[in-house]
């Protein structure tokens, strides 16, 4: 074998790297629309599951049509009221989690004691209402925040009383496969059902802690995935607190904000 010239070695290395990256970028470019469609479907599914409207076997088409049937309201997080029209268009299609950094639709909130929670919140957030006749049956709230390694995105459904948990649904996360991803376990998520999110003084009080899951304000953490499951508790507490949906829910409970079926 002839001795190798450095120039040629570098040239071949660059050519192979260029060829490979071109192949990867092209593939991703072509596949992105399909992946996005599936991501949208997954989000619809998660919302429906939290709303209690997802039957066990259901076609993709049914998921979409049932999702579009939901009563969606847009919440303006700066004034904590429902808004009829917002600059982001159709609330059913709007994904407030897809906002890029530096988007004008992000809102600065003063980070207090909960420093591990987002200091930038989306200005407009879609929430989903499930009606039973004239009374509110469930309110599905999107929540997100820092897990152990990644941002956890989830849907929390409250009962019509707006102070007990109806369902908890983890939508997306990047926690450790096989360990942190046990927060998706339906068995564990079902232990959230019926927990109280506010104490008598109206403070957001739901915690994920070790032991004593008898308390209405406590969810037992997952052994082996304690950091991730505790983080989910922190996220819920933050989003139901004063910087999240707290004021909105208080107004709705106190009927100072009128709420009527569509």
């Amino acid at each position, binding site marked *: 074998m002839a001795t190798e010239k450095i120039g040629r070695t570098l040239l*071949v*290395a660059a050519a*192979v790297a260029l060829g*490979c990256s071109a192949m*990867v970028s092209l593939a991703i470019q072509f*596949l992105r629309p*399909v*992946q996005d469609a*599936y991501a949208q479907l997954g989000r619809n599914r998660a919302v429906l599951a939290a709303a209690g409207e997802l039957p066990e076997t259901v076609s993709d088409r049914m998921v979409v049509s049932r999702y579009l049937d939901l009563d969606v309201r847009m919440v303006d997080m700066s004034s904590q009221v429902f808004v009829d029209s917002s600059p982001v268009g159709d609330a059913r299609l709007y994904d407030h989690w897809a906002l890029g950094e530096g988007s004008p639709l992000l809102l600065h909130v003063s980070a207090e004691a909960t420093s591990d929670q987002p200091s930038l919140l989306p200005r407009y957030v879609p929430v989903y209402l499930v009606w039973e006749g004239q009374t509110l049956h469930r309110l599905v709230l999107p929540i997100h925040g820092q897990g152990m390694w990644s941002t956890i995105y989830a849907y929390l459904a409250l009962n019509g009383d707006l102070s007990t948990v109806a369902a908890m649904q983890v939508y997306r996360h990047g926690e450790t*496969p096989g360990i942190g991803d046990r927060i998706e376990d339906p068995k564990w998520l079902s232990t959230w059902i019926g927990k109280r999110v506010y104490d008598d003084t109206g403070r957001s009080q739901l915690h994920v802690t070790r032991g004593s899951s008898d308390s209405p304000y406590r969810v037992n953490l997952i052994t082996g995935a304690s950091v991730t499951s505790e983080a989910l508790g922190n996220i819920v507490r933050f989003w139901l607190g004063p910087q999240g949906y707290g004021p909105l829910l208080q107004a709705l409970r106190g009927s100072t904000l009128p709420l009527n079926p569509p």
Partner: protein
Amino acid sequence: MNYRQYLTRPLLDENPITVQVLGLCSALAVSRSLRPALIMAASVFCVLVFSNLAVSLLRGVLPRSIRLILEVTIIASAVIVVDETLKAYAPDISQVLSVFVGLIITNCIVLGRAEAFAMRHGPLESVADAVGNGAAYAGILLLVAAIRETLGSGTLLELPILPTTASGGWYPPNEMMLYAPSAFFIIGLLIWGVAAWRHKANRSPHSELETQPAHLKYQETAG
């Protein structure tokens, strides 16, 4: 050797899993049920064929000093494309397989064939070799997955085969089959069986003396 031998030798005599003991991690991890194993086998197959073909075509220009790096670059690119394709068209299975599709990069079978075979053979021979080895890997993976799913869940491709006691049948599922160690046992038994069979075949007066092909010496048993 002719093309037919390149295709058939890996299936038994030079099987990458049972004889060369390569690619075990994924064989252990994704063999719990048949459907993800099918997708995994297809993914490894595609990566193997692509990398063998690409390396074989480039074997004249790849500088010796950095050939391994370039081989891994080619393999890694193919794996990313396969991973993204799965995320687009089989998102559920992609989630089950999670990191193991990405880990095909470190599957010793792929780098082993690229380095030991494709670097010294033409494109057609290399593709034949990749097809043979891919099929051999798939065969073992699917066999292990079929055994584990049948005994562990009483189903095959999620269709009930053995009626489990939970659903009113007579078969109490063997839960151990759902955990990785059971794959160790099954693959161990397979390796034993194949080794015993080869031993017996080699002692018969008509067979040629078995000699390990020289290129096998390059392969490691870490993946």
